[in-house]
């Protein structure tokens, strides 16, 4: 993170429900204009953190700082709450017109009518729902309703926007379109945003940084590239889509590079010879890991290059011969499970699959770029 003073800072916040800690966050800082994505499974504490950041839910310990000033508790937090807006997974529109909804936050601030009309119209325009202004909110589709909900939140020109999985209930085309418009709006307005989602691709699309939460605790925070490529542990790795976690031992480097030996795996090397041990040249390992220590090698399915048998791609070190064990269609890709002395899952596009005939039983070569391989501590 840059050295800019944070607009929002959490210090030792704990939120308890039913006698249990649902959020325990020693520290979190959000820079002005930054978009921070919170990712994590259901029940990770994402919504609770957003409610804590909104000033609505009071923590039992710790403090929230806005521009370096402590946010007070209770009714005194109103001034802070009016600088923040939040959008939930459900649109939660009022039973009135679309315009009435978008103007709601402005009316609560007792702004002059002309100002309300101007700002509401501007926000309706921004989210392309001005033509719906006179419609009843009850008659909107899911996508339209969520657009209105976002327009309502941004109409008050918040300094901080909190988004609690706002696209989770939308169909893929509506989600794509709205994500695009939201990204554009956030860029244009420079609004600091904290965006909770369980979809890492959404997080990747609009976030400057990604924070992974689990069981109310922060597991990792960093750029999307950091979190996706260099997860701190197996939980984060699995959550961010690292489907191949191979037990390895870190080995001494031979010529400047780092190497990992896959434990308990024999492999069929390029050329058809078998070996009792498989080595991979890797891009790096988690800080603090010593040579000789055991860890887990992270390989993302989309980083596994699948080619026809005997097809040579660069260094032979990270190439293995294998047999396709299973093929499962998953969205635009085929998820191909390959047996090459160990089981490796690869994401293959339909085009490649047709070109090299990827089907159960067929022989393939897999290749891995060292830069895509990262070792994390075991356990």
């Amino acid at each position, binding site marked *: 993170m840059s050295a800019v003073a944070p607009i929002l800072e959490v210090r030792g916040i704990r939120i308890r429900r039913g006698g249990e800690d649902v959020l325990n966050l020693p520290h979190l800082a959000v820079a002005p204009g930054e978009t921070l994505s919170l990712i994590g499974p259901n029940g990770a504490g994402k919504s609770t953190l957003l409610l804590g950041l909104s000033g609505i839910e009071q923590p039992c310990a710790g403090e929230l700082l806005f521009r370096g000033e402590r946010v007070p508790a209770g009714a005194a937090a109103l001034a802070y709450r009016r600088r923040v807006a939040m959008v*939930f997974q459900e649109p939660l529109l009022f*039973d009135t017109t679309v315009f009435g909804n978008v103007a709601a936050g402005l009316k609560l601030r007792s702004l002059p009518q002309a100002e309300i009309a101007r700002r509401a119209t501007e926000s309706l325009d921004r989210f392309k729902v001005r033509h719906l202004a006179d419609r009843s909110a009850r008659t909107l589709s899911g996508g339209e309703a969520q657009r209105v909900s976002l327009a309502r939140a941004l109409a*008050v020109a918040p300094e901080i926007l909190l988004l609690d999985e706002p696209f989770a209930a939308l169909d893929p085309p509506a989600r794509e379109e709205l994500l695009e418009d939201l990204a554009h709006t956030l860029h244009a307005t420079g609004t600091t945003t904290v965006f909770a989602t369980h979809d890492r691709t959404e997080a990747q699309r609009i976030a400057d940084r990604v924070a992974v939460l689990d069981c109310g605790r922060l597991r990792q925070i960093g750029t999307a590239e950091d979190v996706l490529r260099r997860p701190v542990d197996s939980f984060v790795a699995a959550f961010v889509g690292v489907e191949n976690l191979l037990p390895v031992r870190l080995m001494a480097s031979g010529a400047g590079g780092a190497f990992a030996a896959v434990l308990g795996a024999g492999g069929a090397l390029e050329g058809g010879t078998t070996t009792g041990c498989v080595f991979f040249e890797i891009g790096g390992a988690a800080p603090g890991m010593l040579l000789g220590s055991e860890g887990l090698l992270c390989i993302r399915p989309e980083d596994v290059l699948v080619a026809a048998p005997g097809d040579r791609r660069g260094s032979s070190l990270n190439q293995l011969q294998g047999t396709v064990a299973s093929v499962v269609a998953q969205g635009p890709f085929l998820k191909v499970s390959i047996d090459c002395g160990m089981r490796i899952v690869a994401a293959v596009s339909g085009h490649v699959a047709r070109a090299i005939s990827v089907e159960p039983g067929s022989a393939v070569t897999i290749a891995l770029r060292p830069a895509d391989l990262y070792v994390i501590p075991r356990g």
Partner: protein
Amino acid sequence: MELIWQGIREAFGLIFGFDAEVWRISLLSLRISGTATFISLFLGVSAGTALALTRFPGRRLLVSLVNTGMGLPPVVVGLFVSISLWRNGPLGVLGLLYTPTAMIIAQSVIATPIVTGISLAAIQQLPPKLRLQILALGATRWQMVRLLLREARLPLLAAVMAGFGGVISEVGASIMVGGNIKGSTRVLTTATVMETGRGNFDIAIALSVILLLLTFAVNYLLTRIQQAERPR
């Protein structure tokens, strides 16, 4: 059957013949039950909203009591209000027994649990996160309550109709605390009971028809308000 038709003809005769006594008891019925409904609306909506939005020990017991109160027998209310207002009772010094005010008090006691119970259900049936969404838009606590009540306006108007329907039609408490005194506390229900007792079925039917028409008119008006101004 002939008796009923005769009663209906009599009713229209009394209404359009501008029978002074019938008009007086009709207007008194409306005034007493209308006032009691307003009082119960104020007390019931406030209590229902508070019960819906707060959590405290004993809340469930209180909600159960409110729900029980929705079926409070008017004669029981009449009995306890009579005892309270009796000359030697705790509020006897006010001298309210056998006055329209006593009837308003009794009818308010009957209608308040009805309005409270329906208001509580009306607020609770709103999406649970709506309260958070309103606060997240920068509302104060009072603004939040106002917006929640606005969102629940349809069932709240149903609460008004149920409260009014409960008190305009009750007779037990009115007769016990009002005494059915001609020119003072005689209302449509007590007059109907009296005329039936005397064997004047045609007048009793006429009064019943007027009571039904009055109830319909008030509910029609409330329904118009309830269904109006909803955007298409």
